[in-house]
């Protein structure tokens, strides 16, 4: 009977429909539903006095969003965000303009992370050995076990977390140490490589990490470092770099970015000069460069090296040397040294906000030995998912079962949770309090913007329970910690920090070092010409943690346009004489095992190098992410987690890849122009026999957009921002295969020519308008080409007649959301039913909002009042939106730029969205 009483009939998520419903269960439910339907009529008014909502609570204006400053943490470092909430439900994430890492922009993963708390596959209940349990049960178990542990001073207690720079967490760990002096804390981050920190130890004598100032950098040498594209790179790097590059338009010499890389990164694609090198060649090149710069009489120096060295010497103080995380500690030490010598004005070294102590693979190795020796009594995983990201030969799942008790606190019932006895549901960061440092060391406080949806606990709360055996809310824990830090001015500092999203003056000041140690060079590494396989973080999935995020899964990978899959990049179209085709399955053979991967030919990959992306092949990720792609983590060895010599076998099988853009060549057309080709293309003849009067817009506004193709790095943040703002559904792999993506802005990729974001052009003479039989697409205020969803009958003629093909059609009922998913939707944008056409609106809801505000304040709109979602989030600020009738607007100024051109101008559609041509090869190479 007791079990029955303990059974929580209203357990979280109980209302969700189980996918495995037997006939019997269905009949039971149907019967109960019928019976209960009558019961609802029997409710009484509440016994206690209740009061209606007469006076609205402060700060709550129905229909107006509230923004909360908080942060998201990736790889231990925070990026500041503003969370837009409507009546208590977060709907969108923006960058926090006051935060140093973001400065108002947010990359794709950050934009997409708004789906996190609403994921229907989240862990919702405490489970013990896959059976429903409760927090009370867990607490009882732990209390019993902690007695024993306390006797042994915590011997055998191991906590595995993700990499963390959270001051509160670190403080809690210290306090846990008091109770269990011999407990072990391991921070495990699958893609964190300690090389940079180890090297800094050698060069500076302490752990320092570089802080780059791209605004002051004239020469940037990137050695396999994707500072523009990698999700763990602060978005402000891309912004600063581009701001400096755009000064070329004002006559300042262009900043020179040299990329030496094995893969083809977004940084490499934007580099003024890019050299494809195998990893060993990069190391050797770096060594040569070092010798050449240090003792100018180096004999090995090639001509290329010489000119590079001359350039560096000329720009002394403004040169940056960036080493990718995958390079050896030696390469890092060279770069640290050269930065200190040649880049003094553009780089600072600060004490690292994250520590390499007790981290990573080595610590896990010890853990696995302890596990197999049966020494581990209580094993906690908090967020980390090593069962997925460690190679299968570790047999991690099996080892975990050897621990006396194993607990996993995680967002999903993931691979590690499945291996542990206890699966504990973790609170999303948008649901609880925390804090974290950012790339420059400054601290952000994380505050919740959503009431917890389920009975979950945050890391801090679980840790506090381990320390005190008491349930304390994360609010009190974080507050208590900062009370100690802020001291007397607590209340004021606490409120300002929360409002601004950053704790004032918390950034770390540059570290000092006594003597700069010269890096010790070992012999030039031998590069066998054997095929090597290298692993790189996925630009979308990172290490696989976002696998259940449908927006990211459907976001085309910028370089390949592949969705819902990962592929292996290869540089040549044949392998040892065998022709390769995109999607052909390759068998990578290593240690009597093999991994099958679909190949994608990407010219520019280093010779005989196969590049895999991490983050796919999840086995326990939920409905979206399970079974998508292959798991690249599983083939690499501990000695080198990013590179492996392997054999390849070309098979005849083909993988079915959902590619968003099937043709990635320009086919003799010129959608992407450079400043050079723009001059070549002669002025177009009058397209029409009628006189071309400038369009008369009776309103005071003429909205327009300019997209700078030279600044676009292809990161796709705009695509996800638009998806979030405008409630754009996903269509799944099958939908993409059929060519039915719904993105209102897409990023076209043309090999050798780069990226081109294409939203609706809002043509002044829009071809879509005259062909609609029911006038469902018409010109509206401010020259907007508008879609009237209610009037649309779905003939799709407008889409056929759109030369830019930016219209999107709801072929099926794509927007069928569960109640949970619906919470995320922006209430200012209608959800489109099936059979209706839709497209970019220039975020008309934002225009109207700004217009109303201006009217209330009795002023006219000024430049910057209206930002489309894409322009707002673009990390490089490549998109500019504004009013052409405003003579002072930035968009007006850009339209007069010599680089400005219209896409398919010869058709005479007169698009309001125009492009700025890319810089020509000559301009990119120009020095002073």
């Amino acid at each position: 009977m007791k079990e029955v009483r303990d059974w929580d009939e209203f357990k979280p998520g109980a209302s969700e429909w189980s996918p495995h419903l037997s006939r019997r269960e269905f009949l039971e439910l149907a019967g109960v539903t019928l019976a209960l339907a009558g019961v609802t009529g029997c409710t009484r008014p509440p016994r206690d006095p209740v009061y209606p909502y007469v006076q609205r609570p402060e700060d709550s204006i129905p229909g107006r969003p509230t923004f909360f400053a908080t942060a998201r943490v990736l790889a231990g470092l925070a990026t500041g965000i503003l969370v837009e909430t409507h009546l208590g439900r977060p709907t969108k994430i923006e960058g926090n303009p006051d935060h140093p890492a973001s400065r108002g922009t947010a990359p794709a993963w950050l934009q997409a992370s708004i789906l996190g708390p609403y994921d229907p596959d989240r862990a919702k209940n405490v489970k013990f050995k896959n059976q429903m349990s409760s927090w009370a049960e867990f607490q009882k178990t732990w209390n019993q076990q902690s007695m024993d542990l306390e006797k042994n001073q915590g011997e055998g207690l191991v906590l595995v977390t993700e990499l963390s720079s959270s001051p509160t967490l670190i403080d809690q760990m210290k306090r846990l140490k008091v109770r269990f002096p011999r407990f072990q804390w391991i921070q495990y981050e699958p893609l964190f490589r300690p090389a940079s920190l180890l090297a800094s130890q050698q060069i500076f004598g302490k752990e320092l990490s570089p802080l780059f100032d791209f605004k002051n950098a004239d020469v940037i040498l990137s050695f396999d470092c994707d500072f523009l594209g990698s999700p763990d790179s602060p978005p402000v790097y891309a912004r600063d770099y581009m701001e400096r590059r755009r000064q070329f338009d004002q006559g300042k010499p262009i900043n020179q970015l040299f990329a030496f890389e094995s893969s083809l990164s977004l940084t490499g694609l934007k580099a003024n000069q890019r050299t494809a090198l195998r990893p060993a060649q990069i190391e050797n090149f770096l060594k040569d460069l070092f010798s050449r710069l240090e003792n100018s009489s180096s004999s090995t120096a090639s001509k290329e090296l010489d000119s590079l060295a001359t350039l560096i010497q000329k720009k002394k103080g403004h040169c940056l040397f960036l080493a990718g995380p995958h390079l050896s500690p030696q390469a890092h030490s060279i770069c640290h040294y050269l930065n200190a010598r040649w880049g003094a004005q553009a780089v600072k070294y600060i004490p690292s906000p994250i520590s390499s102590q007790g981290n990573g693979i080595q610590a896990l190795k010890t853990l696995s030995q302890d596990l197999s020796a049966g020494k581990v009594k209580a094993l906690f995983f908090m967020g980390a998912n090593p069962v997925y990201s460690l190679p299968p030969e570790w047999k991690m799942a099996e080892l975990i079962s050897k621990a006396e008790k194993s607990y996993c606190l995680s967002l999903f019932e993931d691979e590690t949770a499945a291996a542990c006895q206890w699966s504990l549901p973790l609170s999303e960061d948008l649901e609880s309090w925390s804090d974290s440092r950012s790339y420059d060391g400054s601290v952000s406080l994380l505050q919740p913007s959503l009431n917890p949806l389920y009975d979950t606990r945050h890391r801090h709360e679980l840790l506090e329970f381990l320390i005190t055996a008491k349930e304390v809310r994360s609010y009190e824990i974080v507050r208590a910690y900062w009370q100690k830090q802020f001291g007397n001015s607590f209340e004021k500092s606490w409120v300002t920090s929360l409002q601004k999203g950053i704790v004032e003056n918390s950034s770390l000041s540059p570290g000092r070092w006594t003597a700069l140690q010269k890096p010790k060079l070992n012999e030039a590494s031998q590069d066998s010409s054997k095929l090597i396989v290298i692993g790189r973080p996925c630009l979308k999935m990172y290490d696989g943690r976002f696998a259940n995020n449908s927006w990211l899964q459907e976001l085309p990978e910028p370089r390949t346009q592949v969705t819902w899959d990962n592929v292996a990049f290869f540089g040549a179209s044949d392998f040892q004489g065998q022709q390769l085709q995109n999607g052909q399955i390759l068998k990578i053979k290593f240690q009597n095992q093999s991994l099958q991967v679909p190949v994608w030919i990407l010219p520019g990959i280093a010779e005989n190098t196969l590049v895999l992306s991490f983050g796919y092949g999840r086995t326990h990720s939920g409905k979206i992410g399970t079974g998508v792609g292959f798991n690249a983590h599983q083939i690499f060895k501990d000695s080198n987690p990013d590179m492996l010599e392997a054999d390849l076998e070309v098979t005849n099988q083909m993988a079915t890849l959902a590619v968003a853009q099937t043709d990635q060549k320009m086919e003799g057309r010129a959608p992407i122009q450079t400043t050079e080709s723009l001059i070549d293309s002669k002025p177009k003849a009058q397209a029409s026999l009628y006189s071309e009067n400038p369009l008369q817009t009776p309103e005071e506004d003429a909205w327009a957009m300019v997209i700078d193709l030279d600044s676009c790095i292809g990161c796709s943040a705009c695509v996800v921002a638009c998806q979030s703002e405008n409630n754009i559904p996903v269509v799944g792999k099958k939908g993409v295969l059929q060519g039915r993506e719904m993105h209102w802005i897409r990023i076209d990729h043309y090999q050798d020519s780069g990226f081109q974001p294409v939203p609706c052009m809002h043509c002044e003479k829009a071809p879509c308008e005259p062909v609609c039989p029911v006038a469902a697409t018409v010109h509206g205020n401010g020259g907007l080409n508008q879609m009237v969803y209610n009037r649309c009958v779905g003939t799709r003629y407008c889409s056929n007649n759109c030369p830019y093909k930016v219209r999107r059609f709801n072929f099926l009922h794509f927007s069928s959301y569960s109640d949970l998913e619906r919470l995320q939707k922006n209430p200012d944008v209608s959800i489109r039913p099936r059979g209706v056409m839709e497209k970019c609106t220039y975020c008309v809801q934002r225009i109207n909002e700004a217009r109303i505000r201006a009217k209330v304040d009795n002023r006219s709109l000024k430049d910057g009042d209206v930002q489309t979602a894409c322009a707002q989030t673009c990390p490089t600020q490549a998109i500019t939106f504004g009013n052409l009738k405003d003579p002072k607007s930035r968009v007006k100024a850009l339209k007069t730029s010599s680089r400005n051109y219209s896409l398919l101008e010869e058709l005479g559609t007169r698009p309001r969205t125009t492009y700025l041509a890319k810089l020509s090869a000559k301009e990119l190479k120009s020095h002073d």
Partner: protein
Amino acid sequence: MIERSRFQTTKPWLLSLLFASAFLLIFLVAVTYLFVKGVGIWGINQPVGWGFAIANFVWWIGIGHAGTFISAILFLAGQEWRTNISRLAETMTIFAVVCAGLFPLLHLGRPWFFYWLAPYYDTMGLWPQFRSPLIWDMFAVFTYLTVSLLFWYLGLVPDFAILRDASQKLWVRRVYGFFALGWRGSRTQWYFYRTLFLLLAGLATPLVISVHSIVGMDFAAALVPGWHSTIFPPYFVAGAIFSGFAMVLTLALLLRRALHLEDAITLRHLVLCAQFLLAMNLIVSYGYLMEAFTAYYSGDIYDIGMVENRFFGPYALVSWLMILCNVLAPQIIWFRKWRESPVALFILSVIVQIGMWTERFVIVVTSLSRDFLPSAWHMFIPTKWDVATLLGSMGLFATLYLLAARVLPMIPLAELREDESRTRPREVTP
């Protein structure tokens, strides 16, 4: 003749009906599923917003054309031979237009709002957008259906009277009598009949040209390379009559065999139809040639790209099949041996219909699948529902036609009598 002019309830007829209605059933299933799920069950996508449905629409409406052409234009032109095949051709027109008219409705994203295309007084003060060719299309098709229906019925009135008089059962007599509108065959009745017939023929004549011109403008008014062409209206009309005559040949040959109408539908009729087919074939072939010529002559890279994509792109096989069926195959008509062989003509007529369907596929699908920006290019791959709807519509047509041929004379009895009376001295009937 009255006996042979229509089917009787015999085993072959029943079996044919069963076969045809099996396809009709496919159609009903496909349409039901379409209404439940949406047009996404078809292979259409971005950029190919129109697929089978519109190709089928143009194909069916094209087939319809021969009926009106035969009964109106050839009537005005004094081609007396047209009488013998006019009824079967007109019946074909009605049902082909019915099949055609369904597709624009089925292809809508929200078919339940189809009436928004009609200009009716609506409380929101909204009217259709008259600049859209789809509106012209709707008017054209509805006008065409109305006039064809009237024309067809007018021609049937004297025949209903003959059937009424020949029927044994009372209720059958009553039904035919109802539709015969009290026809007695009096001189006055014939006088008015003839006048009205002439008027309707005059009215239907421009419609033959206008309907398919407007269907052509559905495409020509757009700026898609491969659509945006002034040649489309005449080229579409020729194509329509081409496919229509092919269908007339198919049906005439089938009915001739099934109803033993060799004396009514003589070799002369077949040969004349075939010659017509050849004439239209030449116009259509000229259209194909000019399309390619103007593309290269204009030097427009998008138009040139379109032509090259058609004949050397992923859909090249379909385009070459089109050339084979529409341009090359009908050349056999030049030879008397083939021209006068019913079997050869039957095979040819089926080939031409296949060819004309592929032509519509080529125009609709290949043009859309690769237009201006290569980034937007995407293939269209039909699904089983696309095929089911096409086959199903044939089932609908065949079922309707078989049922009509059971109750209506497929040979214009009264007009034939009239012809006979014209050649022979009039006998005085007691």
